[in-house]
């Protein structure tokens, strides 16, 4: 399915906290073809002096009663100028939305459980992934960490879906005090090798730690990386990640088309 460029309208802008919001975009056609883990390149039409689009995981795919995708949302965290504009966006604003792009998460093998590990805004790909996993009847866990309890979002959604939740916060205000790798490491101990598919998304040091923990416990692991991206289509070679297959020579590969989802064991971390 070739990517589409939709001149989308902001249908809703829901602030979740001082820094986070969920922006709903009228890009149902993009949503209809999105597989969990894929992303869109967006650019608010109100931005005049920045040029490049920014990559965002497709967060939710919204559907009408007949099941037809009508919109997508993105989970946005205010950091730079584009994310500020997306935080401030108003209903009716236009946002160019190109997608779906990139490699999706691989489904678990038969008999495997699925554990999704999210850090902060790294929750973004797990709404669609959870929907897919639960629909396939796969026992699913979300290990979700944030700075504080106030930044743990959509817990109701995952609970209602029947996803087992394990929460951590850096300030101890909710769930376990510390990082997601603590419960991950503890709970993976003693589990059969190759019995749990670990999916991770979040800051890169977290991805590295999760990949190491998974490998140490002989569990497969896929991570979704976020590198500074130029085009999202493989044109510019900006977003490269160093990857090593087996014992071969490590090479830079483009995370937009060879990723953003990679086998965690194959990434050569900086």
């Amino acid at each position, binding site marked *: 399915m070739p990517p589409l460029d939709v001149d989308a309208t902001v249908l809703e802008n829901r602030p979740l906290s001082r820094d986070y919001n969920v922006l709903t975009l009228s890009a149902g056609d993009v949503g209809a073809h999105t597989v969990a883990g894929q992303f869109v390149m967006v650019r608010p039409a109100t931005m005049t002096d920045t*040029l490049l689009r920014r990559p965002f995981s497709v967060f939710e795919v919204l559907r009408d009663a007949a099941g037809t995708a009508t919109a997508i949302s993105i989970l946005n965290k205010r950091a730079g100028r584009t994310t500020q504009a997306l935080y401030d966006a108003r209903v009716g604003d236009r946002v160019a939305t190109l997608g779906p792009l990139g490699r999706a998460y691989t489904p678990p093998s038969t008999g495997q459980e699925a554990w999704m590990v999210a850090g902060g805004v790294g929750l973004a790909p797990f709404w669609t992934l959870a929907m897919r996993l639960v629909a396939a009847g796969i026992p699913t866990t979300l290990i979700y960490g944030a700075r504080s309890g106030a930044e743990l979002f959509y817990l109701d959604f995952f609970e209602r879906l029947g996803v087992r939740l394990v929460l951590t916060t850096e300030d101890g205000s909710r769930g376990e005090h510390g990082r997601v790798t603590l419960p991950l490491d503890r709970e993976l101990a003693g589990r059969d090798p190759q019995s749990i598919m670990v999916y991770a998304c979040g800051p890169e040091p977290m991805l590295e730690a999760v990949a190491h923990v998974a490998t140490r416990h002989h569990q497969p692991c896929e991570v979704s990386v976020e590198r500074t991206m130029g085009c999202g289509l493989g044109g510019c070679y900006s977003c490269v990640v160093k990857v090593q297959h087996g014992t071969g020579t490590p090479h830079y590969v483009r995370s937009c088309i060879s990723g953003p989802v990679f086998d965690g064991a194959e990434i050569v971390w900086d």
Partner: protein
Amino acid sequence: MARDLSVRIGTLELPNPLISASGCFGYGLEYEDVTDLSALGGVCVKGLFLTEREGHAPPRIVETPAGMINAIGLQGIGVHRFVKEKLPLLRERGARVFVNVCGTTIDEYAEVTRILTDAGGVAAIELNISCPNIKEGGIQFGCSLLGTGQVVEAVRKVTHLPVIPKLTPNVTDVASFARAAEDAGADAVSLVNTFLALAIDVETRRPTITNVLGGLSGPAIRPIAVRMVWECAREVKIPIIGMGGITNARDALEFILAGATAVQIGTANFVDPFVWGKVLDGIDDYMARHQVERLSDLIGAFDPTPPKVVHR
């Protein structure tokens, strides 16, 4: 469409003047889902050396006002893999393939060109003597009149394909380089490559990209690039391929009026991979509005008579 958008570069005829800029369109095939490669005037692929190159460590780009700075470091698969893996597919898609040839020595430029010529199915050779991001190769030839002439002469001897040295804007008098290229037997020149640039992260006091320096592209450079194309057009008779910050038909027409026979689009393709059709339609609209039958009639049609004062 009755209007004729075709242009000629030496012996090469292109159905329209739009060519993808090297390094901004991968090897072309990355874009086949969103662009009909045969509908472009030409597809210029990422710079190629004899052997594979890894490029610089990321971060490789930073966005700046109306532009971006890049230091990719010419990551690439090398000419042998290109000929084996990419060229046959590009040919099948009907693309007119421009190859951006790199070298660390004059011999390497000639050898890469010879291999491409022997392979067949390449439309033109663009000589990258202007990449600001790598220490060895390229720019040291492009910043010397003698070096520019030597690379062109050496390549000229090994190919019948159009030879198009790509000029750097990081010199005082770019037109003298166009002249050196013409004198050495170039069929055309292309310009501009990126402007050497620096963006500092004031919080950390560190560079924003690993290579420290990079090349500035995008709309920010366009007026300087148009000026340089105009200067070259007055200096040489060979065709000029103009580029630098083109995002729409008006931008492309500025270059054509300044004297460019064809234009390349780089950074704008990152922002909008569907830019090609929009620019082409816009040029066609302009021609209809101005009753121009052949695009070639617009090449160099810039009239430097001062503008009329507009009274409000």
